[in-house]
């Protein structure tokens, strides 16, 4: 069964460092998303991406965040200068359609900022 894969599964970084989280969406999907979940809280939307551009972003997704689809398979989330409060589980997701398509999640990348 096709699946969304994410790397790394866990990353520990120092405050102020840049982090890149990688995702390989399901191959025939067109819409890609990043979500985050701070420990014990609900899953929060960060950004959606379609046709090589951001289609929607939340207020969490400020200038320190960026997304990119550098090739035909990878979808990355970059955090430019990490803060302690960026510690969270980051989930990548993809869907075949935006509003009516089923959303499939990767297993998540746990980011710990020290």
């Amino acid at each position: 069964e096709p699946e969304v894969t994410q790397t790394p599964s866990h990353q520990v970084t120092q405050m102020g460092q840049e982090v890149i989280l990688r995702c390989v969406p399901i191959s025939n999907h067109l819409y890609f998303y990043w979500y985050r979940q701070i420990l014990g809280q609900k899953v929060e939307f960060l950004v959606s991406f379609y046709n090589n551009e951001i289609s929607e972003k939340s207020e969490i997704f400020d200038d320190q965040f960026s997304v990119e689809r550098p090739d035909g398979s990878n979808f990355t989330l970059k955090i430019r200068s990490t803060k302690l409060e960026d510690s969270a589980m980051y989930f990548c997701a993809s869907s075949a359609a935006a509003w009516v398509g089923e959303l499939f999640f990767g297993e998540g990348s746990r980011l710990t900022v020290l």
Partner: protein
Amino acid sequence: GIQVEQSPPDLILQEGANSTLRCNFSDSVNNLQWFHQNPWGQLINLFYIPSGTKQNGRLSATTVATERYSLLYISSSQTTDSGVYFCAGPTGNQFYFGTGTSLTVIP
């Protein structure tokens, strides 16, 4: 954005018991999904259910789109059902998640 409310927030069940989890939306959504977040943090797709009723083993779900709610039924619960159950639905280009129901099934 829309508000997604789930109830109850916490639930403790004896193994073998049945339960019903509820998800209410403040606005119309084009589809609705239920997820199970296991103790390792993974989000597992349970149901994609814009409307109607679906069943998968001991789990079933019903969405009444016109009344903006969905129900998840768990029958004959097992300890492996423990975790957090989220519902989510899209508006615009993002999916909104509920606050979740934390389920603990004790042997």
